[in-house]
């Protein structure tokens, strides 16, 4: 009996100890966790491990690069920035952990999430705390549902519609095929909008559709299904796209055109060497806000700098990274704008909520135009980027031909 009692006591003590240790981590509920910050902390939650890790790593690296550049140039009126990057493994259920950890670590401004699925969770949490979100690459239309969220990338619906419009204008009379990932919100989201906006003439001629799910990359069946198509729309990411193109050699007509969205950016890097990529006979092109193949101008400078800073073989650059780089500079410029044009005051210890109010006002203001490396850059000039009140980005997208048909 006594022993048992002791056990109860020990269990209780252990429980109390756990409680105490957790409790010691933070003491108060609604407080400004940023009040002891010595830098302005920008947080981002993205996949740093797992299947989607290359997107998260590119975002983390590029954002870090931008912040280091800003800090090296003296910061914002002497204030330095700092990046908090946590790994959500491209899983929704990890976002509560990453978000709350960053928030309590003093995150004042956020880049939201790298991918759409976790972003759907992030937007609810950031709305509750009124944290500013400027996501580099979460393309879902719902991501910017609340007033605190903005996108640097094009929303899925815009990409789908824009692609369909391009098809309507340029590919009349050709047989259209679509290859997309059925269990992915990015891919299926674009597909739906694309089909909805495609001209009836295509549909009456018959649009061939092939899909895949999961991580598998064996597309021999799908390639067969699409072998008679003249234009193939690929609203997918580079890895399956590269596998598809490789399988398509010798099966799909050499004069066919591959046309993708921003996810197709960097597809050539999947092939290891340029020669291997050039062995794909078809034309490869995509609609994107960033041209990683630019031979001069701001985009080129960015890619050069990235490759010099990071191991581009292990962590290749892509439009996710470019958008993240722009996001950091957009926040930087917006804060500058707020101080100079709107007379706002802020410092390292300003609360996330106050930052959110300041930045929302700037982003909604018509006179704020950001000049970035994404969007359509003319020569050495940076592009013009602005946002509408609902959080969608306004900038020029272009069809980039990665390689013409052989």
């Amino acid at each position, binding site marked *: *009996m006594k*022993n*048992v*009692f*002791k*056990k*109860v006591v*020990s*269990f*209780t003590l252990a*429980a*109390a100890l*756990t*409680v105490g240790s*957790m*409790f010691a*981590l*933070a*003491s*108060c*509920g*609604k407080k400004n966790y940023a009040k002891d910050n010595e830098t302005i902390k920008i947080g981002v939650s993205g996949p*740093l*491990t797992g299947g989607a*890790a290359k997107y998260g790593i590119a975002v*983390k690296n590029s954002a*870090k690069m931008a912040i280091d550049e800003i800090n090296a140039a003296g910061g914002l009126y002497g204030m330095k920035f700092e*990046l*908090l*990057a*946590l*790994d959500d493994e491209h*899983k*929704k*259920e*990890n976002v*509560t*952990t*990453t978000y*709350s*950890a960053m*928030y*309590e670590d003093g995150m004042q401004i956020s880049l939201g999430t790298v991918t759409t*699925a976790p972003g*759907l*969770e992030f937007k*609810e949490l950031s709305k509750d705390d009124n944290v500013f979100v400027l996501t580099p690459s979460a393309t*879902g239309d*719902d991501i910017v549902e609340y007033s605190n969220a903005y996108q640097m990338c094009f929303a899925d619906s815009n990409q789908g519609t824009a692609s369909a419009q391009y098809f309507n204008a340029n590919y009349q009379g050709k047989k259209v095929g679509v290859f997309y990932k*059925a*269990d*992915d*919100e990015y891919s*299926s*989201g674009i597909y739906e909008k694309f089909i909805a906006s495609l001209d009836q003439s295509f549909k009456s001629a018959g649009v061939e559709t092939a899909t895949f*799910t999961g991580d598998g990359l064996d597309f021999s069946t799908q390639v067969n299904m699409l072998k008679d198509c003249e234009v193939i729309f690929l609203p997918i990411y580079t890895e399956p796209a590269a596998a598809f193109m490789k399988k398509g050699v010798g099966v799909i007509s050499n004069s066919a055109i591959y046309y993708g969205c921003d996810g197709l950016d960097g597809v050539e890097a999947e092939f290891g060497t340029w020669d291997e990529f050039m062995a794909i006979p078809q034309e490869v092109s995509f609609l994107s806000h960033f041209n990683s193949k630019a031979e001069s101008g701001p985009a080129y400078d960015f890619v050069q700098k990235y490759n010099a800073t990071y191991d581009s073989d292990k962590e290749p650059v892509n439009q996710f990274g470019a958008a993240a780089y722009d996001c950091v500079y957009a926040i930087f410029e917006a804060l500058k704008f707020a101080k100079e044009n709107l007379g706002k005051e802020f410092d390292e210890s300003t609360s996330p909520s106050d930052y959110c109010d300041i930045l929302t006002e700037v982003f909604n203001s018509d006179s704020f135009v950001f000049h970035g490396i994404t969007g359509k850059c003319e020569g050495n000039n940076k592009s013009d980027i602005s946002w509408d009140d609902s959080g969608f980005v306004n900038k020029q997208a272009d069809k980039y031909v990665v390689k013409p048909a052989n």
Partner: protein
Amino acid sequence: MSAFIVKFKNIKWKRYTNYIGISLVLLVFTVLTLADSLPQSTLFLLEKIGISIILSISLGLVVGFLGELSLGHAGFMCIGAYIGGKTAELLSDVGVEGIFALLISVVVGALTAAVFGFIVGLPALRLKGDYLAIVTLAFCEIVKTAFENSSKESFGGPMGLRTPRFDKHYLFIIIFSFILVCLAVMQNLIRSKHGRAITAIRDNEIAARATGINVTKYKLLAFIISAAFAGVAGVMYSFANSTVAASAFDYNYSIEILVMVVLGGMGNITGGIISATVITFLNVKLTTMLTGDNAVLKDLVYALILVLIVIYNNAPALKYVRERYNIRALTDKIFKKRSDVSYDTDDEGKWDRVPTKIKMDELLSVDVVVRESVIDPDKEGKE
């Protein structure tokens, strides 16, 4: 009054350590959250731990007590999450919200999951061991695929189902209350004659059948109850998140739950609770501690720890080391108790530690000692 004191003294406290522990944690945190002094990371952590504990206890019934290997527990949870979430969504359309919506969703979600538990339990009557394991895994993947390809109007398709989130300050209280319910059901079931029938099937199915135990009934019963509580955990998940996406409930998640059960010790409810807490805590802490470039080390560390713990706990060659150095010996030393557990004759409420064919490989490394007192089956069964 004195009668009450006598009765109070006669309560077998040991049997209630689980309840007391959980209730105390619940009590402390409830006070803290009412005082509004819990950061949200702690609230989220508590929600996650609570859900893991329910999953661990419920899978423990099938794996630890029935002795069948299931790799599809996440499938039941997925059903609970989607059906519960959908119910809550429909209820909020007709104006029912808050705790009532939650309770109704729990009932609907748990019942649906239970039905599927019955369906999966059917092949279990014919299949053994690893064959059953792959069938449960297959079930889990089928459920996942079905929800992923649902139409946007029904279950949201690949985007996932948007579900109403419950007030984060109080959700963990509800989750922990359900842990208590789950504990009450499981412990009473295990200590009843039904529970002993289930463990008998685990130890020797043919012998159990020969003694007149209705194997079909008890196997299905175990699967149904286990699935129902996984469904409850799923509903809790849907209230803890603003979207439910099927991709989360893959076989890797099932395996994670299985790891909790195995590390906690087969057929050891307390062990399952502790290991669920520790593993969830570890996962969350590793996520937040190893940031940036180190994030890739997280899985490496986790995998290493996992392999080392399992080898330490189970390797026959390490038995001696294990007996000398374990958590129990350490706590005994701290409380200056004789570490020889064979002196402890109070063995009631230890039905979960009866020696069996499956090795008792608890985290706490409890040794099974032949005891002198005989347990009175009639008295036990009625509790």
